[in-house]
């Protein structure tokens, strides 16, 4: 059997990430953890730089197992941005979360490696391995803090994540059994002439893939781990999970369903039901939460619902909308969690009443958090508004009127829980709570303002991003 064609250009990002990981491992023994973090950040930036020349070249390597199409590259860049923000805000917040050791950066880098592999995967095996690398490092990160809540969160995440992976593997096996292919393009091609008697097997496998990915991206009813894990993990890890893991898992989900399985009949209606449930339950459960971190967790579930609209919409509309929204989501969620990491006394986060009168104590943070919450709720001129607009219109133009109406109505309800903390920060007397921690926070502030500036910039000038995405993406 001949060796497959290997494109070194396409492997370069992975090689750089691996070298960075190796360098960080060695440096961890020699220098302070902050120096390791700076090295990791430099590595992430160089990786991003190595991805940009690949943009329009549609390279593929290993016989189509690794795809360098704009879809994968764009989402890899979003992943790298999310990881960069996580590392930046960890430079000062990690000490207070007892995470100030090089193992944190190392696991994060390996998780990014798995995520990028997942985003660029061209067959189901590579996709699964990327997903597992990413998930394993996330389980470890969630458990890394020596505290009871962190251990509980990590254990819950591990058990439910393992179930999700098991279902996913079962689905992959059934899809392979029905089509005889692992490659995404091979599966799509085999659908045309698959024996009619194999279609039920294919459908069952497809539904299992939907369930498995549903665990990873937190779609209702497979979301139950999300509030517990997001609130129990150290806030910095929650930041990383809520942006990097979500982006990568959505990259895999959309790739499989839009590239390989869009020709399978029968999964769209279950997917619609799941999306509608996610939108309704995520938004309404967030209304009741008093803990800000749990509220953001339910908001992450709700956002999975919006993002999953790209699952059913036509691929030419869905993919640009998904990339734009994931970029926006990364900026605003990373920013919001970075603010929580600065404000919190311990890793249980802050309650909404802790935020009372924040403007009179920390005007800068209060303005930044208000802007991020406004963007999350989808108010113009922030990017959250335009992101929702493109996603909703993609779903609408693909004929999913009911889903679009549900999405629009629930995002109205979401205004309430996003804007209540914002209003409390400005129009309320400071709470009689103990003083917020007075710790150095200049790096977190940079991360937060990058996030705010980014949402504002691509919200006012969405074409900066959308223009780049007007081309065949896969």
């Amino acid at each position, binding site marked *: *059997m*001949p*060796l*497959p064609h*290997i494109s070194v250009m396409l492997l370069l990002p992975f090689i750089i990430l*691996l070298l960075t990981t190796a360098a960080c491992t060695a440096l961890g023994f020699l220098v*302070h*953890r*902050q120096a390791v973090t700076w090295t990791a950040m430099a590595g992430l930036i160089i990786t991003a730089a190595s991805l940009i020349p690949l943009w329009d070249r549609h390279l593929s*390597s*290993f016989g189509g*197992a*690794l795809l360098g199409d704009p879809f994968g590259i764009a989402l890899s860049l979003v992943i790298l941005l999310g990881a960069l923000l996580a590392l930046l805000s960890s430079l000062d917040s990690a*000490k207070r979360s*007892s995470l*100030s*050791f*090089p*193992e944190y950066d*190392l*696991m994060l880098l*390996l998780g990014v*490696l*798995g995520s990028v*592999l997942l985003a660029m995967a061209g067959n189901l*095996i*590579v996709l699964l*391995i*990327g997903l*597992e*690398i990413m998930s*394993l*490092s996330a389980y*470890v990160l969630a*458990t*890394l803090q*020596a505290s009871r809540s962190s251990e509980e969160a990590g254990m819950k995440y591990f058990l439910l994540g393992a179930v999700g992976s098991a279902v996913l593997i079962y689905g992959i096996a059934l899809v392979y*059994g*029905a*089509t*005889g292919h692992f490659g995404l393009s091979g599966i799509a091609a085999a659908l045309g002439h*698959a*024996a009619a*008697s*194999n279609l*039920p*097997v294919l*459908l*069952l496998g497809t539904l299992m893939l939907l369930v498995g990915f549903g665990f990873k991206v937190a779609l209702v009813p497979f979301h139950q781990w999300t509030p517990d894990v997001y609130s129990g993990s150290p806030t910095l890890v929650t930041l990383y999970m809520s942006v990097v893991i979500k982006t990568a898992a959505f990259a895999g989900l959309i790739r499989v369903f839009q590239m390989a399985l869009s020709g399978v009949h029968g999964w769209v209606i279950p997917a619609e039901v799941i999306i509608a449930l996610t939108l309704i339950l995520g938004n309404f459960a967030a209304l009741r939460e008093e803990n800000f971190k749990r509220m953001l967790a339910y908001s992450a579930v709700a956002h999975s619902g919006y993002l999953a609209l790209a699952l059913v919409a036509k691929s030419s509309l869905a993919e640009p909308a998904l990339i734009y929204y994931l970029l926006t989501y990364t900026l605003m969620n990373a920013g919001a969690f970075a603010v929580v990491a600065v404000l919190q006394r311990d890793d249980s986060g802050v309650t909404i009443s802790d935020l009372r009168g924040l403007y*009179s*104590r*920390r*005007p800068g943070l209060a303005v930044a958090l208000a802007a991020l919450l406004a963007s999350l709720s989808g108010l113009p001129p922030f990017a959250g508004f335009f992101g929702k607009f493109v996603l909703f219109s993609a779903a609408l133009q693909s004929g999913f009127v009911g889903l679009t109406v549900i999405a629009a109505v629930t995002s109205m309800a979401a205004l309430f829980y996003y804007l209540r903390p914002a209003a409390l920060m400005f129009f309320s007397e*400071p709470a009689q709570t103990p*003083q*917020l921690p*007075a*710790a*150095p*926070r200049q790096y977190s502030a940079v991360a937060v303002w990058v996030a705010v500036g980014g949402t504002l910039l691509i919200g006012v000038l969405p074409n900066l991003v959308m223009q780049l995405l007007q081309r065949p993406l896969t």
Partner: protein
Amino acid sequence: MILFLILALLSLVGGVLTIAASNAIHAVLGLVGTLISLAMLYVTLDAHFLAAVQVIVYAGAVMVLFLFVVMLLNAARPVSSRDPIPYVRELAVIFGVLLAGSLLLVLNGYAPPRSLANAASDLAGGAPGPVGAVLLSKFLLPFEAVSLLLLVAVIGSVALVLRPQVQEDPAPEPAAQPGRGETA
């Protein structure tokens, strides 16, 4: 066909025993049963190398490690504490039966997409050669990526067992001034 049914049933029984046994040793032995019957299934499919690996690595090495850990941690006592989610067993049975039923229905008219005769000739009587050739050509990227997966698992487990020491920030900066209106 009868051989397949017997082996399939054995592996199912082992699997159920693994999750249902309250004693960890019994669970491990159930898993050994599943793995060995799987290995025999491989033999019936002419995948001899795979069967040998399955017995040596999984049923042999990994399971011995499992038993060691169970005995070292004295985890062999039966679990007697209250089940935190009491209804999950019934739910699992219902969904398991539903899934098994739908699988039976679905697999009724199943036709393999590639002919089995070709597969048999590709296997070359279950020799290790074809397995290695496929691993290093068609599945080269997954093969390399799995090594990263193992690396993550190793680093992760070491980091979790030997809790790393939290480092102080290098130059402790003067505490930030309390903001306006903040009572110290």
